[in-house]
C-alpha cells in the first residue's frame, strides 16, 4: 500500500534534512514542474487528480486555483498560503506532516505557488506548534541555500519567497478569511464573500489558502500523475488520507490509508478496538465540528461523499470516539464550550447563540435542565445553521449538537427527568 504523504516519516526520529530528502527523490516535483511544465499544466494535472481540500470543507483544489487571475495583466504580487493553524479539537494530522517531513512542506508550497504564479508564500502556523516551527524554519533555510527558494529557482526564471508566520492563538485564524485578516495584523474576523480570496485576498491581491495535507499531496501528483493519485483511493474521492483516532481505544494514533477506508477498519484494525471495559457508543468522524456517527455507521467509508450521505462530514478525518462510560451531554457541553469561547464575536447569532447553548448544556449536565431546554437547543441548531452567520464556525458548532439530540436524546431526557447526570 502506497503512503506518499508519510513515506519519509519515522516517528521518534528527526525529520529528513535536505540531503536525505533529495536522496529520497525530494524536490523532483519542483524540478519537473519548473523546468518541464507550464503553470497551467500543473493546474490541469491537479484538477484531473480530483484532489479535494483536507482542511474540512472538501472543496476541489484544482477548481479553487482556477479562479486566480493569470497572465501578464493579473494583479501582483499573488500569494500562496498554507493553513497550518490546525486547531480543530481532536485533530492532529497536520502536525505529523509539519514535524515529520518539513521539506515536503516547502516543496509542496513551491509547486503549488508555481501553478498560480505566486511570488510570495506564507506557512501560517499556530503558535503552539513549536517543534513544527523549528523544523519548517530549518527546511526553509536549507531550501534557500540550495536555490529552491528565492530568485530564478533552478534557472527557470521563476521567483518565489517563502515565510513562516507563527500566530498567537484563536481558532478563527483557521478560517480562510480570518487567517488573511490575522496575517495583515488585524483581529481574525471573517470577511464577506464575494470577493473571494482568489481574486481579492491578502492585501487585496489574488490569494490561495490551502490546508497542509492538501498541499502535501501536490508534489506527488506532479511526480506520478493524476491517474496514479486517483487510483490510490477506494472510492471516487482521490488519494490517500491521514486518518487519526483519539479516545478510549487500545491504540490511538494516525495512519495514512487509502481515501474511503471504512470507519470500522480504522477503529478495529488500526486503533485496535475499544479498551477493555469500554464499548463504542459513537464518534465524531472529523473533528469537533462534525455530526456524530453511531454503530449503524461503522461500515461507512470515510470519504467526502460517503460520510455526507451518512449525515455527517469527513471534516479533518481524525475520529474522536465516545465510549459508553462517557456522558454524551457532558461531551457536547465540552464541545460547545470550545465553540462559544472561540466565536470571534463579529456576527450576532454566533456571538450570542453559542454562549446560550453552552449555558443550557451546563444546566442540563448539572441537573438543572428543564424539559423546554431541548426545544431551545433544537431551535439553536437551526438558527445557527448554514446561511445565518458570516462564517462556518457556528454551523460547524451545531453539528455535534444536532446529532447528539438525534442519537442520544434519551440521555438528555434522563438528565432532565432525574435532575442529575447519571454518570456522576
Amino acid at each position, binding site marked *: 500500500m502506497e503512503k506518499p504523504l508519510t513515506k519519509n516519516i519515522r516517528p521518534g526520529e528527526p525529520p529528513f534534512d535536505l540531503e536525505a530528502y533529495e536522496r529520497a527523490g525530494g524536490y523532483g516535483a519542483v524540478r519537473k514542474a519548473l523546468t518541464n511544465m507550464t503553470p497551467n499544466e500543473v493546474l490541469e494535472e491537479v484538477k484531473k487528480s480530483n484532489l479535494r481540500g483536507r482542511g474540512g470543507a472538501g472543496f476541489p483544489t484544482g477548481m479553487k486555483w482556477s479562479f486566480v487571475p493569470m497572465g501578464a495583466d493579473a494583479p501582483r504580487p499573488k500569494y500562496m498560503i498554507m493553513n497550518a493553524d*490546525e*486547531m*480543530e*479539537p*481532536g*485533530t*492532529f494530522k*497536520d*502536525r505529523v506532516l509539519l514535524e515529520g517531513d518539513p521539506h515536503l512542506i516547502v516543496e509542496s508550497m513551491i509547486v503549488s505557488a508555481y501553478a498560480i504564479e505566486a511570488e510570495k508564500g506564507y506557512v501560517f502556523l*499556530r*503558535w*503552539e*506548534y*513549536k*517543534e513544527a516551527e523549528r523544523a519548517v524554519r530549518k527546511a526553509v533555510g536549507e531550501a534557500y541555500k540550495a536555490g529552491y527558494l528565492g530568485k530564478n529557482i533552478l534557472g527557470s526564471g521563476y521567483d518565489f519567497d517563502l*515565510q513562516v*508566520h*507563527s*500566530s*498567537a*492563538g*484563536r*481558532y478563527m485564524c483557521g478560517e480562510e478569511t480570518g487567517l488573511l485578516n*490575522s*496575517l*495583515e*495584523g*488585524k*483581529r*481574525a474576523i471573517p470577511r464577506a464573500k464575494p470577493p473571494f480570496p482568489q481574486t481579492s485576498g491578502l*492585501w487585496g491581491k489574488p490569494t490561495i489558502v490551502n490546508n497542509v495535507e492538501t498541499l502535501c499531496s501536490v508534489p506527488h501528483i506532479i511526480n506520478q500523475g493524476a491517474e496514479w493519485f486517483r487510483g490510490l483511493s477506494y472510492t471516487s474521492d482521490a488519494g490517500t488520507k491521514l486518518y*487519526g*483516532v*483519539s*479516545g*478510549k481505544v487500545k491504540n*490511538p*494514533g*494516525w495512519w495514512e490509508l487509502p481515501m474511503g477506508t471504512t470507519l470500522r477498519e480504522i477503529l478495529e484494525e488500526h486503533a485496535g478496538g475499544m479498551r477493555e471495559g469500554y464499548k463504542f457508543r459513537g464518534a*465524531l468522524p472529523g473533528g*469537533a465540528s462534525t455530526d456524530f456517527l453511531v454503530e449503524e455507521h461503522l461500515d461507512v467509508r470515510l470519504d467526502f461523499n460517503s460520510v455526507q450521505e451518512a449525515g455527517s462530514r469527513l471534516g479533518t478525518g*481524525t475520529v*474522536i*470516539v*465516545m*465510549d459508553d462510560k*462517557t456522558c454524551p451531554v*457532558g*461531551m457536547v457541553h*465540552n*464541545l460547545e*464550550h*470550545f465553540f462559544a*469561547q*472561540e466565536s*470571534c464575536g463579529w456576527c450576532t447569532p454566533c456571538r450570542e447563540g453559542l454562549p446560550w447553548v453552552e449555558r443550557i448544556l451546563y444546566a442540563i449536565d448539572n441537573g438543572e435542565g428543564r424539559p423546554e431546554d431541548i426545544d431551545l437547543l433544537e431551535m439553536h441548531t437551526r438558527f445557527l445553521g448554514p446561511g445565518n452567520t458570516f462564517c462556518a464556525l457556528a454551523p460547524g458548532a451545531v453539528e455535534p449538537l444536532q446529532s447528539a439530540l438525534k442519537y442520544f436524546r434519551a440521555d438528555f431526557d434522563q438528565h432532565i427527568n432525574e435532575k442529575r447526570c447519571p454518570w456522576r
Partner: protein
Amino acid sequence: MLSEEERQEIEKELEHYEYKRAASIEALKILQKHRRWVTDEGLADLAGILEMSTAELDNVATFYNLIYRQPVGENVILLCDSISCWLMGYEQIRDHMRERLGINYGETTPDGKFTLIPIVCLGTCDHAPAMMVGEKLYNDLTPEKVDEILEQYRTG
C-alpha cells in the same frame, strides 16, 4: 521605552511585511518575549512604531489569547481542555494541578513561578491529556507525571 534589543528585533520583523501594522502580532510577541507580558507602556511605544493608535493596537492584542495583557509568572502552563483530553481525564489533571499549585485558571502562584491558563486542543490527541509549559509540550499526562514536571520547573 522599548529596549534597543526589542527595537532592533521589531524593525527586522517589519522588513517582512508590506505594511507596518501587519507586523503588529509579531511585534507584540517580541515585547512579550522580553517582558513576559505586554505592558500598557510597551503597547503605547509599539503603537508609535507601527503607526497605529494605542486603541487600534490594543484591539488586536486583546483578541489573541496568547498575547498576555496582564502579568504572568515565569512559566505559563497551558492545559488543554478540549474534547480528546476531556475524554481521557482532563478534569482529574486540572483538579490535581489546581491543588498542587494552589491557584485557579488565570492566576499566578505567589512565588511567581507558574501561571495556569486553559488552552484549546494542542493537536496531540492520540497522547491525551496534554499541556504546554512555556514552549515545551507534555502529553500522556497522569497526576504523578504532572508532579514530576512541576518539580523540574520549581528546582530548575
